[in-house]
């Protein structure tokens, strides 16, 4: 199987604190891969290294066969690495349509001359606006597409997180606790959206909610104290005594 996203001996330390230790993560094409681990296991630190917000101390990151370890974050986005945030990170005073159209225009900018990019008004970008609207429609956001983001219900904002990531047309999508904070009643909508994500997008899911993980993932990696404890199918993970000890054991004890 070919890996679309791969880390090789990835290490990160803050001072003497080792938060990522020799992580060799491999995300197969089309995978639904979950990354789990107790609080402080270094999941978010790992994501931040993948997206380029943090620079690894050593090791490398490969996207589609290309070493992206030293690329700035926006270059990685352009190559198809998108993410959502655990805590909503949106544009409060822009409408969803503007925000998503902006993301699509950014993706398409190489198709235009400098002059067109600078001086052609937004409505000139009909194709991008239409694409944005269709995307919002798919995520049940069409009705709210012209309201200011900060006025939207929390569940809707959560969906907009997803929409902004999808606008990038990602090959790899990193979902950082997509269901975090979504009230019971609104979570079905989100789960349906997750289930319907196109199969050609490979997904790395970070999640605390085990029921969601076992429903969604076809492969699971357990991270403990910055090291990769084990990777396997959901069945293997559920059976693994080490996992039960460090992870599930905690819940019982």
């Amino acid at each position: 199987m070919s890996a679309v996203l791969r880390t090789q001996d990835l290490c990160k330390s803050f001072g003497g604190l080792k938060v990522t230790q020799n992580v060799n993560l491999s995300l197969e094409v089309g995978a639904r891969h979950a990354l789990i681990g107790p609080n402080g296991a270094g999941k978010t630190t790992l994501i931040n290294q993948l997206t380029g917000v943090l620079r690894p101390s050593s090791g490398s990151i490969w996207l589609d066969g290309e070493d992206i370890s030293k690329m700035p974050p926006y270059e990685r986005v352009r190559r198809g690495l998108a993410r959502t945030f655990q805590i909503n990170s949106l544009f409060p005073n822009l409408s969803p349509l503007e925000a998503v159209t902006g993301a699509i225009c950014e993706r398409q900018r190489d198709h235009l001359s400098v002059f067109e990019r600078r001086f052609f008004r937004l409505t000139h970008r009909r194709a991008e606006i239409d694409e944005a609207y269709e995307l919002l429609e798919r995520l049940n956001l069409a009705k709210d597409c012209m309201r200011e983001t900060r006025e939207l219900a929390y569940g809707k904002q959560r969906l907009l997180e997803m929409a902004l990531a999808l606008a990038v047309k990602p090959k790899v999508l990193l979902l950082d606790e997509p269901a975090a904070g979504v009230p019971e009643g609104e979570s079905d909508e989100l789960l349906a959206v997750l289930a319907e994500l196109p199969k050609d997008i490979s997904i790395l899911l970070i999640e605390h909610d085990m029921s969601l993980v076992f429903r969604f993932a076809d492969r699971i990696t357990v991270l403990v104290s910055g090291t990769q404890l084990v990777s396997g199918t959901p069945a293997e993970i559920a059976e693994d005594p080490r996992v039960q000890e460090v992870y599930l054991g905690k819940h019982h004890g």
Partner: protein
Amino acid sequence: MNIRTESVRAPGYLATLAARERWGRSEIAFWLVLVAVYFLLPNNLMFASQILITGLFALSLDLILGYAGIVTLGHAAFFGLGAYTAGLLTKTGYTEPASGLMVAGLVAGAFGYLSSYLVLRGRDLSRLMITLGIGLLLYEVANRATDITGGVDGLQGIAVGKVFGLFAFDLYGKTAYLYVLVVSFLLFVMVRSLMTAPYGLSLRSIRENQQRAVAIGIPIRARLTNIYTLSAVIAGIAGALLTQTTQFVAIDVFAFQRSADLLIVLLIGGTATLYGGFVGAAVFLLAQDWLSSINAEYWLFWLGLLLIITTRYLRTGVMGGLKSLQRLAARAKPGEES
């Protein structure tokens, strides 16, 4: 072939977006009023030019502060560079003003581009300090280099030629006003199209949320460097306009007070509204003129009061206040949606 069907089902969101981009009636009225000033107030054209120049300068600040969210206390650096460049250029014997503006804009822009590497690196507080530092530095350079700049006495004896070799400046400031108006309008049109393009949207995105802006693939540093440079160009042109219309450069073009006043002008007028700078300049300079004619010593008292009231009660300045009024009026009219 599809035109008709398309216009029939042209969705509401597109209409809303398009309406935001269209030149509104009040916008057209704004520029017509400025043209009318030329005919109606022939004795105040010098003063009106000052307002326009200050407004243009404030527009340049609006680009980085209002749209991109970069705070600065040293924007006078670019204004001053433009002012001195335009003045010194005439000393070399080259006196055509329109091309002088371009040279001034280029010099200020080049300096803006270089200094952006210092300024954009930090966060808000360090940006304030660095821009302040750069401003003080340039002031002192101009102060010391008396041979070139005339120091505190200012740069005198500036001979400004005819615009394009055709239109000479006159004592009443008629040509000067039209010249400033045309330049301001052209630059405004450029800025307006930039801000209604996806480019402007990306700047607003950066101001709203840097983390997310990166995550949708916006190269933040490049974009901010770009707008910072453009802002410097426009500030430089505003400075050059002042030199050319007053035929004098005072050292206070670099003064900290000018940078600080500029912030006040923009905040009074309203940020990220395109017109806030011009409106704020008019309010600020007219109030200054009027209040200091009543009592020169108390002007700062009233300015302080004005500042507190506008920022406390009109959070987005006079422009914001006008917009809320408009919305109220629209609501009062039955059957019309805001």
